């Protein structure tokens, strides 16, 4: 399952805000272009887990962090700006 080319992501959202919903939709769209098992996505709601936002130094939401493979990358915003996002996922 954790093959070397698996991508681990964590998406920070604030509750069910529209920005967070848009980000999730954008990620779903990207996933259509990739094999699903290559992407592991964890969604963190900062309203429920503020301490986790502290850990990753998140101040803006939505924020998507690539945890692995190294190096870490961070992208903020609702991910509607497609060219940026595709580059982020290596497409």
């Amino acid at each position, binding site marked *: 399952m954790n093959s070397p080319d698996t991508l681990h992501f964590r998406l920070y959202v604030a509750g069910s805000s529209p920005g967070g919903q848009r980000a999730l939709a954008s990620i779903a769209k990207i996933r259509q272009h990739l094999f699903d098992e290559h992407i592991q996505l964890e969604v963190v709601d900062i309203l429920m887990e503020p301490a986790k936002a502290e850990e990753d*130094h998140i101040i803006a939401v939505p924020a998507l962090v690539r945890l692995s493979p190294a190096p870490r990358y961070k*992208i903020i915003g609702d991910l509607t700006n497609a060219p940026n996002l595709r580059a*982020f996922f290596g497409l």
Partner: protein
Amino acid sequence: MTFLTHSKAPIEKLPTGIEGFELISRGGLPKGRTTLVAGTSGSAKTVFAAQFLAEGIRQNQEAGVFVTFEEPPEDLRTNLLSLGWPITAWEAEKKWCFVDASPQPGLDAIESGEFDLGALLVRVEHAVNKVGASRVAIDSLGAVFSQFVNASIVRAELRRLAMALKEMGVTAVMTAERTEEYGEISRFGVEEFVADNVIILRNPLIEEKRRRTIEVLKFRGTVHQKGEYPFTVLPDQGIIIIPISAIELKQRSSQTRVTSGIPDLDRMCGGGFFRDSLILVSGATGCGKTLLTAEFIKGGTSRNERCLLLAYEESREQLIRNAIGWGIDFEKLEEQGLLKMVCAYPESAGLEDHLIQMKHEIDSFKPDRIAVDSVTALERVGTLRGFREFIISLASFVKHREIPGLFTATTATLTGGPSVTEAHFSSITDTIILLRYVEMLGEMRRGVTVLKMRGSMHEKEIREYAIDNHGMQIGKPFRNIVGILSGKPEYVIREEYHRLDGMFQE
């Protein structure tokens, strides 16, 4: 009939604990509100923000949250430790909490689409609740803008943060950068959402010297002192503000007399100095000011009064040796705990720092009389304006202690003439004593006169004095000589003298 009533509660103020700040702000920062602290780079904004929290913990056990956008917490812990604030220990006691929003090295964020700073708000709120904070510091707003490309989102979000802080009921300071000492309040237009209360920190370079000042620019709906006040940042203490014109002149006036140390001089003053008076001794170099200082100390210590001597012209060894020559043993007096000598090189610190050191010595030694020899030596350390503020502040501080303070001033030339010290000092001193060289028939002699003695009769004559191994010996008045004070003494023949003497008699 209906009456319109405006019964808004007055704005309460939160004492910050920063020395001098309560005086210039008339009580502290507006409670439950956010105050913008703006300043150029190096103007001690971060110190102010951190001290606001530190004094809350130290003095009132009020917890605080420090939101940093610029320096990582590790750096702040180290830097602030040098100011005497044990941040790490306070964090363990849940008195201090960092919200680290500093840029992560090697983790540049890409912006893609819309975002908000909801996570920041959540984290600040979380931290405030965690430690039960009543004070929040945010340092600095400019650094938030540099982390994001979209400035309009940041501006809107910071406004939301300011509103959230208000709802939380905390008293907050936000720091912001300025590019000029005298110009727009801050960059990025941040004052538009924290405009109610604005404090400006300045650090201009004047005559090759840095001079820090603080100004409460506005406190909406409440009063404060206007204008700039000098301050300094000291190790182990942080910011100390010197509230010159906020000093109140409310000291009582004493009729009790104390000795000058010289019985003849006491007689010239109409029975000695008043107990709570400031005495200025003016004279050229070498004419006996330090001697008069020593006599003043002898006069005090012989009545078991504690004396503090602040010396800026001579070293300890020189002072001791000179005093021995006049029959006064400074070392022995120090052993008895009746005297404390503090010798400092004028250039060793700025004027503000000297003033704070003087106050510290006075507060800790609690002297019954104090002598400063000479004030003129400190003239060259600061700017003219700075020196004037220094003189007024020092004089007022001594006067509040209700003890006699003897200050010496060196005249510009050997024969007298005004000095900067005298120009600033003479109006606030109660007593002025002049020591002057008098050239008479090819001989150099010395004269002393009491020029001013507020609230008392005093002798108007100029008396000759001599210096021997018992100190100062005051003799008879100069006769047959005019123009001593103008520095051009002239001998007048006896008959002429009597004629002049009778000229103004009816």
